């Protein structure tokens, strides 16, 4: 059951400061409404993973690891591999996070990232089949939040794409019942590069890449995921209030632009 969350007791005064700044075209960390925080992307840190990327977005920090293993396809898609996205919002990353099974926030995060990858057909799922209906490769995308200073969705989306774009796998073949790996690493075939761009409505103003203090006072949140051709491939609204029709139109257009900028950085970092 989902219920209205208990926000941490941020002093009213502090909240007012954040809102007033935004209303005056400023932000608590001196950015413009349409600017991202500094973005750093590092791939390949986890040698035991097929792919990995650590992303810092300001002080938010996310690690994504990709593991590729053999498994069974879903009965209704016998000729496709399997993609699984999982997110850990562990207590290391924030006093707001607790131990225990995935919270609704973790599930929402994982499912939004999953939709962007799946709907844009980023991973070439046909190429993952070893034996139709019986044996396929399963791509696990594990999102690990290390430090939470706001806008985890974009940080995770960027890290997931960087990890996928830099992932390598051994060519697997079936010999009888057994999976045999041939030497030599090949890149994971990607057909698309989805990038999530998240906005917060603070007061009446919309800002991109909200920092934690902005998330704690925002009326609503919107994530727009854009694929490589500039089309939308996933959206998700969050927060207790909403957006007007005009706001939505404006936000979508800005998302296309911001996604292109971030995509370029991701692909450059993934190439190393």
């Amino acid at each position: 059951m989902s219920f209205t969350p208990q926000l941490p007791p941020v002093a009213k005064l502090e909240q007012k400061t954040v809102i007033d700044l935004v209303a005056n075209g400023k932000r608590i960390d001196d950015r413009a409404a349409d600017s991202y925080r500094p973005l750093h992307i590092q791939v390949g840190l986890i040698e035991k993973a097929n792919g990995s990327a650590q992303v810092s977005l300001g002080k938010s920090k996310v690690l994504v690891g990709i593991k590729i293993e053999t498994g069974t396809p879903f009965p209704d898609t016998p000729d496709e591999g399997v993609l699984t996205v999982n997110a850990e919002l562990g207590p290391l990353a924030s006093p707001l996070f607790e131990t225990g099974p995935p919270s609704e926030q973790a599930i929402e995060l994982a499912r939004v990232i999953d939709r962007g990858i799946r709907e844009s057909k980023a991973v070439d799922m046909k190429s993952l089949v070893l034996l139709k209906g019986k044996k396929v490769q399963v791509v696990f995308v594990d999102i690990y939040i290390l430090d939470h200073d706001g806008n985890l969705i974009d940080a995770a989306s960027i890290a997931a794409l960087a990890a996928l774009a830099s992932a390598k796998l051994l060519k697997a073949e079936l010999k009888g019942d057994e999976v045999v790996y041939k030497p030599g690493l090949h890149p994971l075939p990607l057909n698309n590069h989805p990038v999530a761009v998240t906005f917060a409505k603070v007061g009446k103003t919309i800002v991109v890449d909200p920092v934690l203090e902005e998330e704690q006072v925002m009326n609503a949140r919107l994530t727009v995921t854009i694929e490589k051709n500039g089309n939308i491939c996933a959206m998700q609204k969050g927060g207790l209030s909403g957006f007007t029709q005009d706001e939505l139109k404006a936000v979508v257009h800005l998302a296309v632009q911001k996604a292109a900028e971030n995509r370029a950085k991701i692909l450059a970092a993934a190439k190393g």
Partner: protein
Amino acid sequence: MPEPKQPEKLIDDKGVRIDGRRLDQLRPIKLEVGILDKADGSAYIEQGKNKILVGVYGPREAHPKHIALPDRAVLRCRYRMAPFSVDERKNPAPSRREMELSKVIRESLESVVLTDLYPRTTIDVFIEVLQSDGGSRCAGITAASLALADAGIPMRELVAACAVGKIQGHMALDLSDAEDKYGEADLPVAWVPNANLVTLLQMDGILTTNEFEKGLTMALDACKTIHGMQQEALKKKYLVIKEVAEEREETEVVA
């Protein structure tokens, strides 16, 4: 039960959809208010083959206590599919999809409920999808608004919801199961008409920005229509109550 087969075309040469609808046409909608005995408020919606029952309890004491908020009621929401509501039986354990939808549906309702009138309480919305046919989260929101009203919980206004999608390259209103499954995109929308706020928005599939804008307009128009139906359903309920009350009065006079 085996799933129905994929239709050859989702739209025929005359622009007619598999269930005979035009692109901008809603499925038949049936709304009923106040149909459960124990719940404080309830509503039932049929939209196409969707059959959804919503019960509301509250404001009532928060349990467990630590979830209570000092300055407002906690809104709680559970979206749930019956095991028999879909083609392949759904495991009764809550799925990740159900948990996500419970969250976004709750967030679509938060802004209209006057929760600050009832600090330290909960208002509970239970959405039971008895049969699912595409667009169940939107139909659930439409019915949940009515159930909240039926429970007598003060609201700024009713929330109406409807999905729009893309099939065979065209934007189409209120996708059915088959259209959702074999179509190219799905865009569920909830709207608070007077505040002019979209309080639920999700999307999957591929849409150009133009298609998005067109689809959003179609969805909001449909929400307007549905909002009218909601008001009718509430009026009808109160009319019935009034009639019953009048009948009683007459009876009492007679007696």
